[in-house]
């Protein structure tokens, strides 16, 4: 009974957040543009592709392109989610809804939880719809069935939760656009670091490092520690995309990116609730 009493205001705030966002013209424009772009990618599946002089079969092309599209959609929806999240508190404040909601017997944690859930539900639906379009194009038009595609989309939703919580927290500490840019920087640094890490494991890099003149290096360096702790957004995408290939197995180490991002969600979530508790309502 107590739990349902506490959940009721959260459900209402979640519902209003969803409705308000969907009614925004900018959201509709972004959604329609993204859906059209995903439909246009359809043409790429029917081309002839050559690798090292050998023609690729249709199924390989579809799988490879679908994985690439999966990553592009995942990254794109993260950016759109950050854009939607950065102005949510400001708009509520300016439109008087924050004062209206919090003058009712609704606690601040319930309001923030409702906002997070509303944005999360909306962005997950957004991404799932775009991934769903790719899934149906490949399944129906191209007869390549990838059951793991939609599961992978759901797994990626943890990234969206991270983006929402991080941007909401940052938007309380700095201007909205700076909060958005900070989040973008976190993603870009993670992407570049993952690229450098992947390159350092290549045969050429290994050969350079093992040359007689090369300086010996310790196994644990500060940048390795930073890289290990940095939010693994791309890692989660890679983990999710590995589910697209049926029959791929996962070791415990491969789920580290998921645990890493989940840990960040919990830490930043706690900071967000603490910060909003001391926020002055205008």
């Amino acid at each position, binding site marked *: 009974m107590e739990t349902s009493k506490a959940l009721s205001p959260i459900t209402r705030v979640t519902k209003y957040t969803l409705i*308000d966002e969907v009614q925004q013209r900018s959201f509709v424009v972004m959604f329609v543009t993204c859906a059209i772009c995903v439909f246009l990618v359809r043409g790429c599946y029917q081309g002839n592709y050559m690798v090292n002089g050998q023609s690729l079969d249709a199924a390989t092309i579809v799988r490879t392109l679908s994985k690439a599209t999966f990553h592009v959609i995942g990254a794109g929806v993260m950016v759109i989610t950050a854009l939607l999240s950065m102005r949510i508190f400001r708009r509520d404040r300016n*439109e*008087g809804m924050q*004062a*209206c909601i919090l*003058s009712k*017997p609704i606690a601040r944690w*319930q309001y923030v939880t409702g906002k997070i859930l509303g944005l999360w539900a909306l962005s997950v639906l957004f991404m799932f719809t775009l991934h769903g379009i790719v899934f149906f194009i490949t399944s129906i038009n191209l007869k390549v069935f990838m059951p793991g595609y939609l599961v992978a989309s759901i797994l990626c939703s943890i990234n969206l939760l991270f983006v929402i919580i991080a941007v909401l927290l940052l938007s309380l500490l700095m201007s909205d656009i700076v909060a958005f840019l900070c989040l973008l920087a976190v993603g870009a640094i993670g992407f570049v670091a993952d690229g450098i890490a992947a390159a350092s494991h290549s045969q050429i890099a290994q050969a350079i490092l093992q040359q007689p003149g090369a300086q010996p290096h310790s196994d644990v360096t500060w940048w390795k520690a930073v890289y290990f702790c940095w939010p693994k957004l791309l890692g989660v995408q890679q983990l999710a995309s590995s589910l697209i290939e049926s029959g791929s197995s996962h070791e415990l180490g491969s789920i580290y990116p998921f645990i890493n991002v989940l840990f960040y969600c919990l830490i930043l979530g706690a900071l967000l609730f603490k910060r909003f508790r001391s926020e002055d309502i205008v």
Partner: protein
Amino acid sequence: MIKLKNVTKLYDSLTAVDDVSFSVTPGEYFALLGPNGAGKTTIVKMLLDFTRPSSGSLSLSGISSLQAECRKSVGYLAENHHIPASLSGWHYLLRCAELLDMDRSEATDHCKRIVELIGMQGRENTKVGTYSKGMVQRFGLGAALMGNPKLLILDEPTSGLDPIGIREIRLLLESLKDQGMTIFLNSHLLSEVEKICDTAAIINRGKLLVKDTISAIVKDGETLEDVFVRLVKG
């Protein structure tokens, strides 16, 4: 109904409210008066937990203002009330009703009554973006009256209203008082306050100067405005 005990609020080096204590009893029509920047809105915000006191305590119906539960039977109208422009007045009221945990049919019935009460029949379904300031204020008052609150906290309720609108709101508030509602009014309109309020408090630079019944504050041959000017100018 309302109790403030040694409440102080500091904004960095500025003391917005300085060791203020007073109480408002159930059924009282109370006015908080003071010049701009005196700390009136800060007190209202602390009552609603929109901002936390630096020291001291506030309570509503015996429950600390820090607990959401204390706002169960409280209606609030902000100065320069805002409503999302994308909503109609009706949808705004419906939202406020649902936030009080009413189901859809109960909320609909309640909203119909409120629309009649604030005299906005026929305009409730148009978008808020087309409303005048006074109309927004009326819907704000309607939202504050949602759920039949026992305590109404009004921050400049007649802001933006024309003289006829001010009179209508005054009559409405008087009828609510007759029904036993406690009203906490934050206003600049001293003549209106003198006409309708039972008690008043005057604050200046965060300090409480006086809190008493209107008849005790206003001596023979004086108006509330005279007393106000005398106390504030020292």
